């Protein structure tokens, strides 16, 4: 078996990601290099179990519990997105993802948060959507419905506006459309969607321990570094 090292110790997670080529099969392997890394991998396994337990497709995630844990994840076929993805050109996919989120997250008995949902962690194969990288997975209350989508939208805004946080009218209208689509699935007690971006940041900072991060949270999530004035600006755009 031949392996390629894709990343190592990203954001100090003590985990390496390999792409493995075994005869005609390709899969990804996450391997821990400390006990912290073991926790991260164990958590990721929980995420996959939660997400795929009611899934129509069987996925073959192999978990090996040795001194250092390992997780083998199959390579999913479909459209993948680069890390610098923006809103423009991806509107159709974003709407598909929101529809999928509403369906999957609101019907699942136990509510959970992916924690790092962004286009690069999503693979779309026709109408099937697969989500990877569950390192920051955690269980949470249903009142936080929408957190993951708001985080994904903010990453897109961040990339789209090249850190200046100014969007054109087309993108602003699209954001509003996404918000309306999302709010249809939220309950009355929702604690995110009244002021989505601001509340998402509050959730992230208040419950940062749930995200299992061993580095400074401000280095990992763009939502956490963005000033409140910017978040409130985008809140006003989508809720108006």
């Amino acid at each position, binding site marked *: 078996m*031949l*392996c*390629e*090292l894709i990343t190592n*110790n990203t954001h100090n997670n*003590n985990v*390496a990601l390999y792409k493995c080529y075994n005869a005609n099969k390709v899969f990804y*392997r996450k391997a821990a*290099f400390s006990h912290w890394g073991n926790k991260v991998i164990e958590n990721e396994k929980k995420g996959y179990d939660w997400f795929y337990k009611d899934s129509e497709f069987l996925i073959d995630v192999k978990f090996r519990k040795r*001194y250092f844990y390992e997780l083998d994840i199959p390579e999913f076929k479909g459209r993948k997105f680069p890390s610098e993805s923006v809103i423009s050109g991806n509107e159709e996919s974003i709407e598909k993802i929101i529809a999928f989120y509403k369906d999957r997250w609101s019907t699942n008995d136990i509510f959970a948060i992916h924690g790092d949902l962004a286009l690069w962690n999503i693979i779309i194969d026709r109408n099937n959507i697969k989500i990877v990288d569950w390192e920051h997975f955690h269980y949470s209350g249903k009142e936080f419905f929408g957190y993951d989508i708001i985080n994904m939208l903010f990453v897109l805004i961040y990339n789209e506006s090249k850190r200046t946080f100014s969007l054109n009218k087309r993108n602003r209208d699209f954001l509003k459309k996404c918000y309306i689509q999302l709010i249809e699935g939220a309950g009355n007690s929702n604690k995110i969607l009244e002021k989505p971006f601001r509340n998402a940041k509050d959730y992230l900072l208040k419950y940062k321990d749930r995200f299992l991060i061993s580095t400074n949270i401000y280095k990992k999530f763009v939502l956490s570094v963005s000033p409140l004035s910017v978040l409130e600006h985008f809140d006003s755009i989508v809720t108006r």
Partner: protein
Amino acid sequence: MLAPQNSYTNLSSAVGLGLIGFNGKDIAVDYGCMCSDSFVYASRLCKRIVGINTSYERLKTLQKRLVEEDVKNYGLVNANYNEQHFNEAFDYVIINSFLEQLLIEIKHNKSIFLESMIRSKKKNNSPGEIRIGFLQRVCNGLRPGGTLYLSYANKLRIRTLLLFIKLAIESSFTAISLKKAPSFTSLLNAIYLFPYYLLSQRGLEKLLKSNGFVDIEKYAVFPDHKCPLKIIPLRKLYECSYEPVQHLYGEGSLKRISAGVKRRVDRLIFKNFKLFDLSPSFIITARKSS
């Protein structure tokens, strides 16, 4: 083997060893013990590991670390690499910074060097007679089917080239002074060692084959083999993606600018032109024929 729950050492620098799959029954040997993280990592996943080094001080430092980490399944041997005669004792051989050892041997044994030169001119690819004592010892120590893991820095790097250019420019404009003598001495030494280096680098695969190894895989390693962030198997070059990676130490505008320049140069060299011979480091894995 149960993990002590208070041990949180991050052994991410041993990520190269993830390319070879250890299992709990394996016995490994580390020639040189150059990277203590790798030694600790292997000790966690193998049944037993032996470290061999010529320096007593180096072994003492390593032992201190092993005590701190509560590693117990190890043995340390203070001896010359070529003095050890293990016979099919190991499932894995780990050698970090290997090429230096090979270079010393080739440099001291002119017949190997000359013979290899003649062979390469004749374009004779048949392996068989280039016997390197060190490699033979390594091969003898491995069980049939056992795995060899080598990592080493690529000395044919742009930085070396820049040093050559810098010294050449300096010598044209200024008189040779005593202050610059050490630089010139190291430059001369580098020039002297260069053919040996090229021989061992280019002929490494041949040398390994002629010393009993098969299934040889070579990997390009970035930004260095001491703490890799990206490892690309050269056999899968066109299926792998390359994006520049580097360790960022400290902050400051000058460091940011130089990191940006390096990123652009790396992207050009490795992503656009695929010149992986210029990679900063390499890892080689090979198997002893059964």
